[in-house]
């Protein structure tokens, strides 16, 4: 990928500086550039290309998403909550290992992210989900959480634009999400694993349908159709997966008005008069600082880094005191067993089907918010024999070898992800002791899962287990959940949008309430989690909307 630079130095005066080249920043940069605006897109992480990914090497299963210098941010965790025996059925176990967790406190483990051009879309599986129309009115519907300051209809045209930019493959329609046109490519044919689960779901009276995902099922805009290697989380060497680098960033570069600078970090935004940001200080990888004077700044560093940067800059845009609050995380569980018949669990698009039946705020009695159930294969890497040998086949010796030969391809797994309501015990703050190389405090992630979250997770996990059993899997061999360990892929809500400047950080267009030329377009602005669906398409739709509004502001139309 060319980065559109002709000079290693950033231009001093530009229209818009976009900070963060993940889902939101890339989409905003492309849209802005397409409007004729000059854009500089920086990211603290590196650029990746096909040669970085190791899905075609002999020991591919020992690989994962590649680590490169600066491709991970620094953060620390607060203490994990003590376990409550009433939720023991959500604890981790592995029958192949003869192990059930005996920990006393939740492990604060991982924040799964990638810093770099494309951000975490580089390693995601690629659900392309719109939020349900009701998800925009969570508080009105449940009395909990927050309503959005905009509705589904406001976002629908932008959803359409995103889906057609990235080449989504999906079914003709999805309940609760009226579409102005179909997805650009048809849904992927479900794998055998998905077909087995669909039969189980049908026996329980549940629907199980094709999922919408970011990899096209037909060649699309110069990208090939997915060939079902299943290794989306290793990084897609073919470029068929619609990660932000091969879609929005590539399109932004094509305009000739966007320059992309990997390995460049924001160090400071300086406040000017008239509630405007007057200057940005950006550091290159070698630590050289450069001042630039953008007319507007779009912050899109993600739900951890965006509040961290704002808080570290003396609480910029934190007039409400809500920056870093309302952190929402991925509340999930997975359950895996072996089916008596081969299901080819290593073949097909991972998570190519989905159960939408609980995608509503009253899905589980006594809990607010809904969730989704999907097949599980890639997420726990049941794509090759090594993971089977370690995690699903008990024992050792020739018997183990024989059993592995018999059972390879028989893994059946289900996973549940559900809504996560904001909680005062969950937020992002600044570390008291640790700083980055520029002397700015790193982020501290605090997380507690209250009973309301666990009630919802418990109810949905029970449904998922019923589907598994009805599919022909009698015994769950392995289980894990976010109750045992903070291990989050979707994080959101830390610079929430809202109408009230006293309780939110940005308005419905992503503009900070006070600073006229400071905008935010990443997961941090989301007021709710859409019942656990994939966030990237919604982040990108919001980013396009923000970009349109920003251009209108530049033209004096707002």
């Amino acid at each position: 990928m060319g980065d559109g630079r002709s000079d290693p130095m950033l231009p001093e005066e530009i229209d818009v500086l976009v900070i963060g080249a993940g889902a939101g920043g890339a989409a905003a940069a492309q849209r802005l550039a397409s409007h004729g605006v000059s854009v500089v897109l920086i990211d603290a992480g590196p650029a990746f290309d096909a040669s970085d990914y190791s899905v075609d090497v002999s020991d591919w299963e020992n690989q994962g998403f590649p680590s490169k210098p600066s491709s991970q941010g620094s953060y620390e965790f607060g203490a994990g909550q003590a376990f409550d025996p009433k939720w023991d059925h959500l604890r981790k176990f592995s029958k192949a290992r003869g192990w059930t967790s005996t920990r006393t406190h939740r492990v604060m483990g991982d924040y799964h992210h990638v810093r770099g051009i494309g951000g975490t879309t580089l390693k995601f599986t690629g659900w392309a989900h719109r939020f349900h129309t009701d998800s925009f009115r969570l508080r009105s519907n449940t009395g909990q959480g927050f309503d959005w300051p905009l509705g589904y209809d406001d976002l629908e045209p932008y959803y359409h634009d995103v889906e057609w930019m990235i080449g989504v493959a999906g079914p003709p329609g999805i309940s609760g999400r009226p579409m102005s046109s179909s997805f650009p490519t048809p849904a992927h044919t479900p794998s055998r694993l998905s077909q087995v689960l669909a039969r189980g779901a049908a026996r329980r009276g549940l629907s199980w349908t094709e999922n919408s995902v970011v990899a096209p099922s037909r060649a699309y805009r110069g990208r090939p159709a997915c060939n079902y290697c299943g290794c989306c989380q290793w990084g897609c060497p073919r470029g068929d997966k619609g990660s932000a680098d091969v879609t929005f960033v590539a399109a932004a570069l094509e305009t000739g008005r966007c320059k992309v600078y990997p390995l460049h970090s924001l160090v400071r935004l300086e406040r000017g008069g008239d509630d405007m940001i007057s200057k940005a200080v950006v550091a290159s990888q070698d630590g050289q600082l450069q001042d630039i004077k953008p007319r507007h700044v779009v912050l899109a560093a993600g739900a951890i880094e965006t509040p961290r940067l704002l808080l570290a800059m003396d609480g910029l845009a934190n007039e409400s005191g809500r920056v870093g609050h309302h952190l929402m995380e991925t509340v999930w569980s997975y359950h895996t067993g072996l089916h008596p018949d081969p299901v080819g669990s290593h073949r097909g698009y991972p998570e190519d089907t989905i159960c939408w039946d609980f995608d509503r705020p009253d899905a589980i009695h006594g809990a607010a918010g809904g969730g989704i159930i999907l097949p599980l294969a890639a997420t726990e890497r049941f794509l090759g024999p090594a993971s089977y040998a370690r995690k699903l086949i008990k024992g050792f010796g020739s018997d183990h070898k024989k059993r592995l030969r018999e059972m390879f391809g028989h893994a059946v797994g289900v996973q549940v992800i559900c809504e996560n309501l904001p909680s005062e015990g969950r937020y992002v703050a600044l570390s008291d002791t640790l700083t980055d190389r520029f002397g700015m405090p790193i982020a501290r992630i605090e997380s507690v899962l209250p009973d309301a979250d666990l009630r919802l997770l418990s109810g949905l996990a029970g449904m998922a287990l019923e589907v598994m059993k009805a599919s022909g899997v009698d015994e769950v061999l392995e289980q894990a959940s976010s109750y045992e360990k903070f291990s989050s892929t979707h994080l959101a809500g830390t610079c929430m949008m809202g109408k009230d400047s006293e309780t939110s950080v940005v308005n419905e267009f992503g503009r900070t309430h006070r600073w006229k030329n400071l905008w935010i377009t990443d997961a941090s602005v989301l007021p709710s989690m859409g019942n656990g669906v994939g966030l990237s398409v919604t982040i990108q739709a919001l980013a396009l909307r923000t970009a349109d509004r920003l251009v209108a502001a530049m033209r004096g139309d707002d």
Partner: protein
Amino acid sequence: MSTSNDNQRHRDVPSARRSYISRRKLFVLGFMAMCAAFAGFVLSYRRSTLEAFLDTLIPRDEFGPSATDIGLTDIIRQKAERNHWRFVELELAQVWMNLKAGGSFAGASEARRNEIVSQMEASGPDSVLWKAYHFARTHCMTYYYANAERATALGFVGPPQPDGHEEPAALWTGAANG
């Protein structure tokens, strides 16, 4: 062998001093040689125990080579040496395995070795033996099977790319119909 008189004479003849070895030096050298031999024996003993352990986990049989056939011994040892606790657990487990086998785990029959490793597997998550067993098992399985050649024997043809896994599209009959 030199005498004390010889030593006295040699002190007067510097050029000859380099030609002879004193008893003390000879003793030191002899002791070092014994230590080296003993260390070699211990290292060889430890290595043979570890090799026997790994080949009990993944033996050579009609399904393929053993763990040591493909050189996993050094990989597992290096993995252990990177983590102090894992290293100590693995060392202690090997001492225990040898004691259980009556002196030499490597010299025990296959049935006896299987019995001893089964005891490790059943010893419970808090025990050193269980931790050593799962440490070795996890890494053995990972390195052994994360290899396209051995995976091929399981019907998995090479790494996932560049060919992918095209799947016949005929089986899907529609949402929820199964």
